[in-house]
């Protein structure tokens, strides 16, 4: 992380060939148009940038935060609230990074930004989206728009991405009925939709009771990981716009990520919904650690 706050141009064509194969680029998307509870996630990327500088200086464990030489791209200005513009700009910079041989890590902004990054991947059916989140985010539309942050994973399904949802503890009945079938209730911990595209939802209780291995059955080799920070417990990550009790601890999330990545290739990732207005600094630091982990340690997970 050389210059976090200023816009850094994408590498020149061909420059990627000289980079290590898993070198990382961060796309910042300070997009906030539909936050429904506490506003402020447009300031998330700025807070993560500051903490990435600190994270780069202090490795949590070997290989954890070697972020020197990363590229930081601000995809659009904070004032952008038009979803088409956000998706265009985030998609463009994600494609640039992929073309330069870099692993794209998107930092938000609200969860809607995931749609921008996914737009950069052409073959949706071969890229499984693995979502860590408190909320199912499967609504067809919410508050008058399909580009609400409560619809983020429904849009991923619309593109044809297989979906694995982990740690979910909040939903409305309609979205569960529509995606997983009428009467699916989650009380057994795991919901399964055969597809296409296929989807699985592992509830918070299901994860606590050891259901991740079952949920991972059949998940493809290439994955995109999206982490909504409200998957974590408000006790360790208070700085989110829609806090939900009974979340994961930091280590519980890392353990789950390692198991998800084992034997698979990370094609891209995002960390979203940081709301500095509710934070005392620890959630921003945690988000930076996650971004660093995804960009570096992810490639070191035993395959």
């Amino acid at each position: 992380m050389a210059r976090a706050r200023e816009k850094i141009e994408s590498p020149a064509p061909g420059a990627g060939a000289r980079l290590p194969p898993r070198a990382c680029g961060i796309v910042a998307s300070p997009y906030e148009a539909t936050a429904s509870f506490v506003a402020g996630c447009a300031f998330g990327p700025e807070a993560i940038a500051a903490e990435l500088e600190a994270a780069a200086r202090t490795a949590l464990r070997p290989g954890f935060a070697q972020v020197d030489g990363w590229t930081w791209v601000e995809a659009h200005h904070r004032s952008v609230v038009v979803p088409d513009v956000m998706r265009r700009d985030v998609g463009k910079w994600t494609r640039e990074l992929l073309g330069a041989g870099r692993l794209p890590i998107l930092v938000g902004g609200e969860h809607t930004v995931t749609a921008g990054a996914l737009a950069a991947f052409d073959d949706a059916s071969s890229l499984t989206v693995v979502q860590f989140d408190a909320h199912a985010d499967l609504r067809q539309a919410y508050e008058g728009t399909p580009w609400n942050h409560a619809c983020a994973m429904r849009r991923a399904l619309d593109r044809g991405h297989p979906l694995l949802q982990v740690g979910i503890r909040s939903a409305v009945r309609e979205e569960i009925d529509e995606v997983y079938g009428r009467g699916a209730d989650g009380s057994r911990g795991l919901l399964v939709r055969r597809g296409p595209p296929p989807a699985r939802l592992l509830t918070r209780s299901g994860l606590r009771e050891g259901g991740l291995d079952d949920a991972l059955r059949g998940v493809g080799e290439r994955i995109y990981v999206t982490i909504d920070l409200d998957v974590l417990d408000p006790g360790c990550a208070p700085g989110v716009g829609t806090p939900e009790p009974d979340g994961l601890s930091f280590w519980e999330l890392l353990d789950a990520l390692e198991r998800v990545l084992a034997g698979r290739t990370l094609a891209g990732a995002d960390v979203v919904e940081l709301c500095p207005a509710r934070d005392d600094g620890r959630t921003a630091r945690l988000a930076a650690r996650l971004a660093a982990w995804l960009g570096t340690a992810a490639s070191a997970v035993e395959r």
Partner: protein
Amino acid sequence: MTDCFLTAENPEDAAHAWAVVLPVPFDRCAAKAPGARLAPAAVIAASQQVETHDLEAGCDPTVRGLFTAPPPELDYVTEDAALEPIGGAVEAHVGAGRFALLLGGESAVLAGSARGLARLGGCGVVRLEGVLGCEDVRHGLRAVPRTATRRAAELLPVRSSGWRLAAEGARAFAGAKDLAGPDARRLAARPGATLATADEVVAGLPQDVWLAIDLGVLDPSVLPMPGNLEPGGLAYADLTALLAAVFASRRVLGAELTGLCVPAGDVLPAFVAARLGLRVLALAHRQRYPAGADG
């Protein structure tokens, strides 16, 4: 902004609902910090952000009709005048067969709801609280949070669990009445711990129970609010697992969520209370309609 808990609007009247939510802004002499009178409105406002399909209970308790009643008129001139409207509302709704969820208000609300329950012929009280509320008098008052469990126990069988503080006089009363269930240390899930069973939480209580939750039973990391500073409270998952076990072993007539003090500028405590309210209603709904169908 709606005045309804979890829903955009009420059914026609309470008779068209399987459950009623009763805001009780009772704030007379809180042991920690004043402000409980603001909690019902804050919880109702936060509940508009709660997604109402409870994944773990497997149902949406709003579908069959959930009625949010107006707050009762509270008159603090005398203890009777303050408590009687609470007891009267509980008596009316529970007597009509509706599940009642009270949103306090300080935890002395139990002294009022116990009156109504006693008039209905009685039931047991599953009390969950951070401080064993079995003192006799405090500040010259008989119905305050530190005495509420004792007031209920004078009318009904009570079992109090989850507490992590208990004054000497409270312990003595609890011992004499044999109402002290497992404390927080025995209920908290942690490596190597011997967990108390749900049986201990309801031991000695009849089949029909009232669930009285003082939110101070939760750890400050879960419910950060003025006055809730004592370490060692229950984790959210500890509490919800305990609730599920209570519903599995007893018929729950109603519940109260009390003791919430809403800090300025922080949405989390009211939201946690709203989520917990959803869970209580969802467990009650599943108990009444075990087929699991929402509609």
